[in-house]
Structure formats: structure tokens, C-alpha cells
């Protein structure tokens, strides 16, 4: 069940092995996230939350093109009665285009698995989004706002959601080779079904990231 995130990790490692001439900079980073997931099922709202730990790398091919890979895993504990705690692992790979300093466009895929004591579920999302950014402190601290949409989401054992979108904000700090960031993201998935009984999911993530520019 953990195979997909491993594949993503391998892909991330492969990025680091790209020909040196094609790489202008490489940033390796670790992440620590708090994830809260809310699911409405049959009128009941379940809430699980917990930490995820991960690592990844961003390889900049040029001033306007970079590739990012990331893997993370952790355990989400039940926060409401009737909810089941679960382990969660996810991997992401995305290509970022930066047409100008204030705007970036992301296109990528996320693979996520969640396992409870009795079942497991795999999510595969193709996502795209736009990120608007501005320097809060020139050259040091940057604030961003993101909007994302997932036009293709497949969830094992579930029909594909009718609606999958999200948004978020970020703070990115740069000082020499050190890069640090705090990113908040919010994702919403509305699955098909009658209004009262339809499955709804929301996931909020607050991810701290510390990176180091290797080259």
C-alpha cells in the first residue's frame, strides 16, 4: 500500500541525478506538517489529525522552470468519537513555471495512501494551480496565496469527486543557502450522492519546511 509514495520518492531522487548542466540550483528540504482531515459521511462528521514528516527536493532548471518532489508520512489520530486513526503517506511531484516574479503555475500529481486497522485507501490526484506572491521583505521574506484545482482525482473504493479544489497561503524565508517556509493549504472534495448522504472531505495542512541550497 505504501508503494506509490515510494515511487514518488524515487522520482524525487531521480531529479537530483539530472545532468548537472541542466540544473541551476538544487534545494533539499525536510518538512513537518500538521494535517487535519474532516469527513462527513452519512451525516456524521469525523475528524482526524496528526503530524506528517517528510523530505524532498526542488531542482531549478532555469529562472522560469523547476521541478519539485516530496514524500511524507505520519499518523493521524481520531479527534471525534467514531473516527478511526490512520496512517497516511503521500508523495508529490510537480513542475512549476514562473512566467514572472509575482506569479507561478504548478502542474503535478499527488499520490496518497491512508490505512486504518480495517481498510486502506489510495488517492491519485492530478493537480494544477496558480500562486501569486510578493516580497514582504525584499529578497528575504515572501508571502504567497495559492489556488488549486484537481481535474482528475481517483480514490480507491469511491467514485471520483465532483469537485476537488483548494487554496492556501505561504511564507517563504531566504537567507543565503537557507530556505524556510510555512505553508497552509486547504483542500475540499465533494463526492457524488444525495445532499444529506453525500460524502464530503476537507483537509487542512500546515507545513513547515526547512531547506538548504546544495548548489
Amino acid at each position, binding site marked *: 500500500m505504501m508503494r506509490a509514495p515510494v515511487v514518488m520518492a524515487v522520482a524525487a531522487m531521480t531529479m537530483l541525478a539530472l545532468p548537472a548542466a541542466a540544473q541551476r540550483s538544487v534545494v533539499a528540504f525536510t518538512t513537518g506538517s500538521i494535517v487535519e482531515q474532516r469527513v462527513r459521511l452519512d451525516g456524521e462528521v469525523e475528524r482526524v489529525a496528526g503530524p506528517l514528516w517528510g523530505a524532498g527536493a526542488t531542482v531549478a532548471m532555469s529562472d522560469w522552470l523547476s521541478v519539485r518532489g516530496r514524500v511524507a508520512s505520519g499518523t493521524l489520530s481520531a479527534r471525534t468519537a467514531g473516527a478511526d486513526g490512520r496512517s497516511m503517506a503521500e508523495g508529490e511531484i510537480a513542475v512549476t513555471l514562473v512566467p514572472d516574479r509575482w506569479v507561478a503555475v504548478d502542474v503535478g500529481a499527488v499520490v496518497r495512501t491512508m490505512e486504518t486497522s480495517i481498510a486502506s485507501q489510495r488517492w491519485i490526484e492530478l493537480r494544477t494551480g496558480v500562486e501569486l506572491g*510578493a516580497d*514582504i521583505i*525584499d529578497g528575504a521574506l515572501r508571502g504567497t496565496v495559492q489556488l488549486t484545482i484537481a481535474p482528475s482525482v481517483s480514490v480507491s473504493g469511491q467514485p471520483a469527486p465532483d469537485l476537488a479544489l483548494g487554496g492556501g*497561503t505561504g511564507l517563504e524565508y531566504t537567507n543565503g543557502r537557507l530556505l524556510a517556509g510555512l505553508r497552509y493549504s*486547504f483542500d475540499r472534495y465533494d463526492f457524488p450522492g444525495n445532499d444529506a448522504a453525500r460524502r*464530503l472531505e476537507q483537509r487542512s495542512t500546515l507545513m513547515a519546511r526547512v531547506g538548504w541550497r546544495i548548489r
Partner: protein
Amino acid sequence: MSIMHKALSAALVVLVLAGIVPQAGAQDNTDEALRQSVTWYENLEVERALGLLRRVISPSSPFEVSREQRVTAYKYLGAALAILGQKDSSIVYFRAALERDPFLDLDPDRFTNQEQAALAEAKRRSFAAASRPLTAKRWDPAREEVTFSVVTTHQASLRVEIQPVDSGPRAVIYDRETEGVRDVGWNGVIATRLAPAGPYELHVIGRSLLTGRVDSVSFPFSIRHDFPQLEDTLPPLLASELLPERHAASAGRSSLLKGLAVASAALLIPRLGGHGDLSAGSNGLSATAATAAAGAGIVAFVVRRRAPSIPANIARNNVRRNERVAANIEIIRRNAERLAQTRLVLLPGAPR
């Protein structure tokens, strides 16, 4: 009628030619007369030579006589009269020649001692200080000199100066007793520096040690510096070419607003994008993100208020300024090398 007409035409042609030809050939006729006189003089037909020479210098001579031709005529008159033993008359003609050409001399291979003695006496009785006309010259002031040929007809104190026409110090390039022709050199330096380009005058001032009489002559000329083209130094960097070294007064507010905008977005996204049935309960993550963004804006606001300077930009600007200074030092060094190759050019005459 036809014969009359032809006769009138012929007469007209003769009259016209009679008026033009003597003027056109006046110099040639004087040259011819002088050549004939010299030939007779050398063939010891002195009397015939004297007659022709006197006609050349006569005020009633129909021929034009240049200064040089007149000097030649006076010279051979003096020489001829010296041979005939008319020493005083000889001296008179030699003095007339010296007045026009103080460089006058007699070739010892062609003129007798008697003639030489008469000229020497004429030189003692006359006094003139002069310089040969200047000629264009280009020279390396580090290794070469331009030479001025000056003369006094007899023993005198002679001073030769280079005087800038506009202003500035003069260069005294000769100041001592002398007699006869002397070549005076000048390397182009005035007061330990190369003479600046511009108009100058060569002054030759002589004071006779026999009579106390003073004579002087001046020649205008100009000096030009000849060297490889120099590079212009780069101008100081303009403010528009440098990065801002201080934040604008509004920069702090701008940072605060950006931070607050991100904070607002963090709060609004789950409210606007979330499903109503799932929004119950606290949303601590978005509040944390909003607090962090607002805090960042406030910190940036305070930092910029307290320290509006931008150290990174100052450092980058200083690097650029230092690079500009270094580039100019290099240009100045290259220009100095080119100036060291300066050649001076003397151009006779007043600059136009």
C-alpha cells in the same frame, strides 16, 4: 578696309603683349640678369658684372626683384667691389645684404680673402639677430629636439625664448654670448612639463657687445600634441543606475499590508472554500498561518521603520562603485601610457 583692319589688329596684339610679357617674365629676367652677372663675376669680367648688378638693384629697374634676389645682387656687388679695391663701397653693399639676410656668408672656396675681410668688416659695423624661418617638425620630446638656427652678425649676448601666446611661463632655451650661426635645440619642455598644445612665438633677442645695439625677431608657430586616441573615463554611476539603498517611507506600510493580506487569505480560504457542514469547530491551522503572516508583516514594518537602509543593496552598490573606480583607474593608466608616446608637432605660422 581689310588691310587697315589687319594692321589695327596686329598693332593691338603687339600692344597687349608689350604690356603683359614684361610683368609675367619680370622675375625670370631678374634671375637671368643675376645668373649672367655671376657668370661674368666668375669669369673675372667684374666691370660688366657690376654694371648689370647695379641695373638689377636700381629703383628704375623695370624688373621685379625679390628679397633673396636683392641679397644676391648686393652680395656680388660687395664682392666685386672688394676685388676692385673699393673696400668702403664693398662694405656698404655687404651691409645692405646683411640687413636683409643676417645669415649671409661667403663660401671660402669661391670668394677671396679680400672679399671675406670686407664681409667681416660689414658684419662688425652692422648688427642683426635673426633666425631661419621655421619648418614643420614632429619629434619625440623624450629623445629628440627641434632645432632653431639663429645668428648674430657679430659678438653679442643672445637670448632665445619660447613664449606661449596666451599665457604661461616662457622657456629660455639659449642665453649667452655668441657670434655667427648657432643651432639651438628645444626638447619641447617648459617648466619641467611638456609645452601644452597652442600658439607660441620664438623670440630671438640679441645685444651687440660692440655697439650695445639691440635687435630682435619673432616667429609665430603652434605646437600640437600627437598621441594615440585617449579613452574617456566612465562617468560616476547615476542614482538611476544603482539599487535603492533605503526603503521608501511607504515600504514599511506596504510590507505590513502584504502580511495582512496573506493573513486574511489564510482565514478566508477555509471559510469561503469549505463546506458549511464541515466548518464547525475551530480551525487552528488557518489561524496559525494567519498569525504567522500578520506577524511577518508587523515585523517587516517595525524593521523597516527602525532600519530603513538596505544593507544588501548598499553592498552591491559599493561593489559596482568600486568596479567603476577600478575601471577608471585602468583607463587612466592606459591613457598615461598613450600620453607617454606623445610626439610634439611644430607648425610654423600663426594658428588660424
